[in-house]
């Protein structure tokens, strides 16, 4: 069992960070929270409604960037965003407008007509993010949105997300970059081994220290020994 007994309360309009070591259960938790993976037990409530009792209406209000799933990568970048928009039931004109805007905002305009399969890892991440944004959801769930993304694009994405939260949207991101989470998020949860170790506002969780130090302290596993004694070049 990858996850057991995770209970998190994400306030509306918050910028929520989910951090944890590799294999902590972040992706599993987010999959269950977005209607991609039915939990064996427990419930997910979004805006007061039980997601798994009737997933479809709630899914329409969420934008998801899943980690580790393929995209329909034989489509071009522009086609993929259009496809997602049309699947969401949007009309053609709106989809076309937003596709152009998203490609510009994520520095992908020059690559709009290339197949996604030929994109680099960072570009793939950005096109997936664009697909998650196209229907202007009330909540965004982003699994590792900054992985492999170059610093300029990452700054652009951060700006988009911050202004989205400023306009009342809710964002949940998972990340390994503590520094980024500390600067960007207002709430954070630390999970490891399928359990919540700490959750609350960023200031509560880090308790006067840097989030990274606090994370290491909570999760444990830092070694203070000499390391690999044979891994020396001289």
């Amino acid at each position, binding site marked *: 069992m990858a996850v057991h007994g995770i209970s998190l309360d994400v306030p509306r309009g918050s910028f929520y960070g989910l951090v944890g070591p590799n294999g902590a259960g972040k992706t599993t938790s987010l999959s269950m929270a977005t209607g991609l993976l039915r939990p064996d037990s427990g419930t997910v409530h979004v805006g007061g409604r039980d997601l798994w009792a009737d997933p479809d209406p709630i899914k329409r209000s969420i934008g998801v960037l899943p980690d580790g799933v393929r*995209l329909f990568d034989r489509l071009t970048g522009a086609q993929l965003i259009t496809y997602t928009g049309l699947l969401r039931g949007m009309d053609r004109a709106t989809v076309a407008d937003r596709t152009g805007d998203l490609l510009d905002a994520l520095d992908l305009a020059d690559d709009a007509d290339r197949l996604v399969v030929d994109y680099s890892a960072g570009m793939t991440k950005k096109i997936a993010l664009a697909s998650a944004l196209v229907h202007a959801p009330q909540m965004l769930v982003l699994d590792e949105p900054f992985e492999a993304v170059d610093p300029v694009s990452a700054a652009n994405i951060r700006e988009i997300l911050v202004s989205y939260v400023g306009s009342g949207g809710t964002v949940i991101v998972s990340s390994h970059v503590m520094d980024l989470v500390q600067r960007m998020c207002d709430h954070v949860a630390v999970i490891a081994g399928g359990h919540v170790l700490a959750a609350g506002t960023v200031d509560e969780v880090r308790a006067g220290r840097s989030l990274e130090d606090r994370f290491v302290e909570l999760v444990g596993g830092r070694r203070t020994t000499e390391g690999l004694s044979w891994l020396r070049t001289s």
Partner: protein
Amino acid sequence: MVAHLLRLRFALLVNGFRRSVWQTIGFAVGAVYVLFVVVLAVGGVAALGLGSPDLAPDAVVTGGAVLVLGWWVLPLLFFGQDATLDPQHFSLFGIPARRLTAGLALAALVGIGGVALVLVSLGWSLAWLASPALVPVALVGGVAGVAVAVLGSRALTSTLAPFLEARRAREVTSIAVLVLGVLGWLAFVGTTGSGGSFDSRDLGPVIERVATVAAWTPVGAPWALAGDVSDGAWAALLARVAIVAATVAAAWWAWTRALARAMVTTSRPTASGSQQGLGWFARFPATPTGAVAARTATYWLRDPRYAGSLAVVPFMPVVLVVVAGGDLSSPLLLVAAPLVAMLFGFSLSNDVAYDHTAFALHVSTAVRGVSDRLGRVVPALAVSIPLVVAFALASAGLTGRWDLLPPVLGLSLGTLGVSLGVSAVVSVLYLYPVPKPGRAPSSNPPARP
């Protein structure tokens, strides 16, 4: 090095079982089936060796030639060369290509196919049961046969891989081989009598003739060594040993060279492409159903796996003509249209599996099931209805049975509908393993639930 690679191959095999029970069961079933075939092949030859010692050696030469030829050609066609020991995985270790060749050649024998090849090749030495002194010679021939099969196969695939990578090339090759196979069958039927049925007494001379020719080719020579010793044909023996040695040496050299090249090249670039504008998305209605249809249409044109599953459809009538013994006016041809309709419908039954995890998009966007199913069927109908109608018209025209056109049309279109409908349900309920996106259409995925 060689021992390392063998151990690695074993570990990969065993770890595959740890991943899933079904894979283990599939392996066991496959192993039992192949063992059954091996026992039949070896037992048959042994019985022949005791019963009619004159025919047995020729049968072994013919069978051996077919075995080696199959070992060479089938991976090329279906690109089923298992990729668990892809040489590019070793490119960072700086292993000399020659040692890699030896290790990979032996590792290729670990697995159902490899073990079966060895068992059959060695078992066929029992063809000489009537004169046991020759069995050891035949064993040597069997080992040589295994070497020719494995090294030749690897040399061919690794040398030709760059050319076969291109989708067109592979399609053309498969079609060419299919046509050749059909022509070969027609020629066989033509020479051995008529109607595709022949007397088993005719078989002896045919095998003898085939064996005489095959014994002088690289694929047949290893199996004929014992026969030469038996006949005391020392000159012929020497020549055949030279053929075998030259084949093994050439294959070894070609494979080593290909491996050395693979060590210093990165993985082959995927077929890149671009598309101005929105393509099909601009032509289909802007609804979820239309979007799924546009995506499906795009994939059919752009994803070789779809083209691969459709490529067999036009060949069904060809097969029917063959079964009918080349008679173009045979009423059997009227089956072509319903048959094509059924196969076409079946090609949709792995649709969701082809999507792989990209299907998550359909789940997270909460697309209605009806839109998803209908969208996938619409492009299929657009292609298949004209195709099926054309086949029905052509078969009615060729057989001159225009009176049967309405029932044939009705049967064909009905079959198409049922087949598509069943596929639409089945593709959701039962996902069977298919090549992953980006892999060759005929690469063999490991069985997985």
